[in-house]
């Protein structure tokens, strides 16, 4: 079987892609209008929604970047994982019920729709749509590039495709993604998310088992090996240090509430009461999948220190190398398919919220009505967004810029959406002016932060810039709201916020 390793891995990935296409075709028959395309007719069950929420949260970063960070700096990046349970709680306590009720009241099909209802302001809708669009464009490029790199890595190992270019890998992987997003919209997206989430869970459990066996003494020996080499790496703060880790804990717990592709899915369940079951499904799914993140990173660090695995040229190869050299071929195939699943399940959500911003929210804000033939335009825009992001990821003058933009996109989402949506939908005193200023401030702060990064301006103790931007925008939102006149809420908004 090992002789066919590359063929098996490629076969698993190809089978996964074919299944995504089949789901896209099936979902196309169910997508009859823009409401179906963006909101899945608000008709999803709790299991589908729960798994879609967690699989959208865990992008390709969790499967490649996460293990790489643990290999690189020890326990530090585990702070991004252990905040998940409280992060999901924050999302569901603050928005699980509230956003669903807002969506039901006005039959909303996007997050800016909800924001416009809450603040009675088209300007707030426009700014929110703009922030989402900027964040989506920034983030999508990094996801597409990650997908293409993985595909190139897999295909170049076979004899037939050895010289395949990155351009072709971008075309192939984006084509599959775009196909199911265009044909089936969010229905295809959530059902592929369901399938993708299940693959991630199975893959993570199996990988955890193999990582446990990497050294004879299991995780106890792995821990002792790492601690003997550098005690701090296996201590709670890892190599990064205490304040850096605490800033990650803050940002990733709270910032999750501000991810539009995740939050939007909370509007899609059939019944508001389903939220009570969606939360545990999401937490368990994420928790199990994150086992892969932690176990591969620790196992690879210990294996390299013990001389049982050659030194890695780059930390990013920790997961692919572990899969290639320390797991059976079929498992490597499943995990590589899971990796695609993780990237695609995030990217499809981005495409959907980005398309909604372009064809629904921005025209609504500027003209007072959305585009005619919204479904057709939604499909065209989905293709256009994917093509633009793919071109940017391929031809960006600076490769580092793409990674920076990924972080920039995440930062914008967190800083713009947490105050305006997570706090604003639960606090009647929040005003439209405060929301507008907070969104603008979040954009400006994140642009400044990106510029500082580009100039390599150091931040003390590696406190995450995103955490600083998030605190700043929330404080601005609170300050302006408290300094302005209390808003007069409509009867409908009062009714939603009183529940």
């Amino acid at each position, binding site marked *: 079987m090992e002789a066919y390793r590359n063929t098996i891995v490629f076969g698993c990935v190809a089978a996964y892609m074919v299944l995504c296409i089949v789901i896209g075709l099936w979902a196309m028959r169910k997508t009859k209008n823009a409401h179906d395309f963006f909101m899945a007719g608000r008709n999803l069950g709790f299991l589908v929604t729960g798994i879609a929420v967690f699989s959208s949260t865990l992008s390709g970063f969790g499967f490649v970047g996460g293990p790489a960070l643990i*290999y690189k700096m*020890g*326990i530090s990046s*585990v702070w991004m994982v*252990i905040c998940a*349970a*409280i992060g999901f*709680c*924050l999302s569901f*306590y*603050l*928005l699980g*019920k509230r956003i669903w009720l807002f969506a039901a*009241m006005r039959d909303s099909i996007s997050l800016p729709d909800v924001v416009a209802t809450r603040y009675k302001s088209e300007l707030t809708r426009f700014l929110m749509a703009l922030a989402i669009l900027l964040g989506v464009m920034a983030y999508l490029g990094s996801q597409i590039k990650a997908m293409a790199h993985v595909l190139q890595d897999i295909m170049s190992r076979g004899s037939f495709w050895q010289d395949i270019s990155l351009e072709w890998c971008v075309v192939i992987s984006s084509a599959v993604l775009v196909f199911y997003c265009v044909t089936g919209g969010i229905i295809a997206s959530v059902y592929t998310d369901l399938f993708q989430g299940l693959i991630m869970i199975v893959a993570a459990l199996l990988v955890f088992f193999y990582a446990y066996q990497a050294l004879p003494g*299991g*995780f106890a020996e792995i*821990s*002792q090996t790492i*601690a*003997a080499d*550098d*005690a*701090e790496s*296996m*201590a*709670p*703060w890892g*190599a*990064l*240090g*205490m*304040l*850096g880790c*605490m800033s990650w*804990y*803050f940002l990733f717990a*709270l910032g999750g509430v501000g991810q539009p592709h995740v939050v939007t899915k909370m509007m899609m369940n059939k019944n*508001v009461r389903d939220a009570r079951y969606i*939360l*545990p499904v999401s*937490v368990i799914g994420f928790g199990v999948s994150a086992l892969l993140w*932690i176990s591969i990173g620790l196992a690879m660090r210990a294996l*390299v220190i013990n001389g049982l695995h050659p*030194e*890695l040229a780059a*930390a990013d190869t920790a997961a692919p190398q572990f899969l290639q050299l320390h797991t059976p071929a079929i498992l490597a195939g499943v995990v590589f398919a899971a990796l695609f699943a993780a990237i695609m399940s995030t990217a499809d959500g981005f495409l959907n919220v980005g398309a909604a911003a372009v064809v629904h929210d921005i025209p609504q804000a500027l003209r007072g009505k959305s585009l005619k033939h919204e479904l057709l335009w939604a499909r065209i825009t989905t293709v256009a967004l994917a093509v633009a992001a793919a071109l940017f990821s391929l031809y960006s003058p600076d490769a580092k810029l793409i990674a920076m933009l990924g972080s920039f996109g995440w930062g914008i989402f967190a800083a713009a959406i947490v105050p305006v949506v997570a*706090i604003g939908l*639960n*606090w009647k005193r929040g005003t439209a002016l405060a929301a507008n200023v907070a969104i603008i401030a979040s954009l400006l702060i994140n642009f400044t932060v990106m510029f500082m990064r580009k100039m390599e301006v150091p931040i*003390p103790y590696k*406190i995450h810039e995103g*955490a*600083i931007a998030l*605190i*700043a925008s929330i*404080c601005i939102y*609170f300050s302006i709201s408290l300094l302005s006149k209390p808003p007069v809420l409509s009867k409908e908004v009062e*009714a939603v916020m*009183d*529940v």
Partner: protein
Amino acid sequence: MKLATWIFALYLAIGGIITIAFFVEEDPGSQGLAHPTYKDMSIGGESTRTDKIVWLGTALGILQITLFVSMLCLAIHLDKKQRVWMAAGGGLMLTMFLAMVFSYRALLAAGTLSNPAIFLGLPVPTAFMIYGLGLTPLVFVIFYVVQFDSCVLRPERYEKFQQVLAERQRSAEDHQ
């Protein structure tokens, strides 16, 4: 003090602590050092790097956990007994966080950080972090599931919402 004002105060306090960190002189290795042998691997180096900022980091952790639990309460309706449950959940998270900090400091003082006692495959402070701080929020997950009807979506309030929704739908139909 209203809950929202309390939350704002917590954000300001967290912002204040981060601002203070900008003025505390950094020791070499406070952000990690390159591994002397392996490329693309970092080490924490000397544990004394935490001495100056341990109080800042501890305060930051306490404030963050307090903030998270306070924010959970922002969107739900709690009676006296439920408030106690939420406070107990927060207390449990704080206990785990402090146990992690103190057990780490204890290992440092004993000089056994490089050969730590292991609990379920992890050094004790890291075990407090992953199994303790990481899993205690499950209390809030259980609370959400069990208390959903009494504090998240109260039937009488939801009924009122449905009345307004029905009114709105009727008036929309009349317009058409």
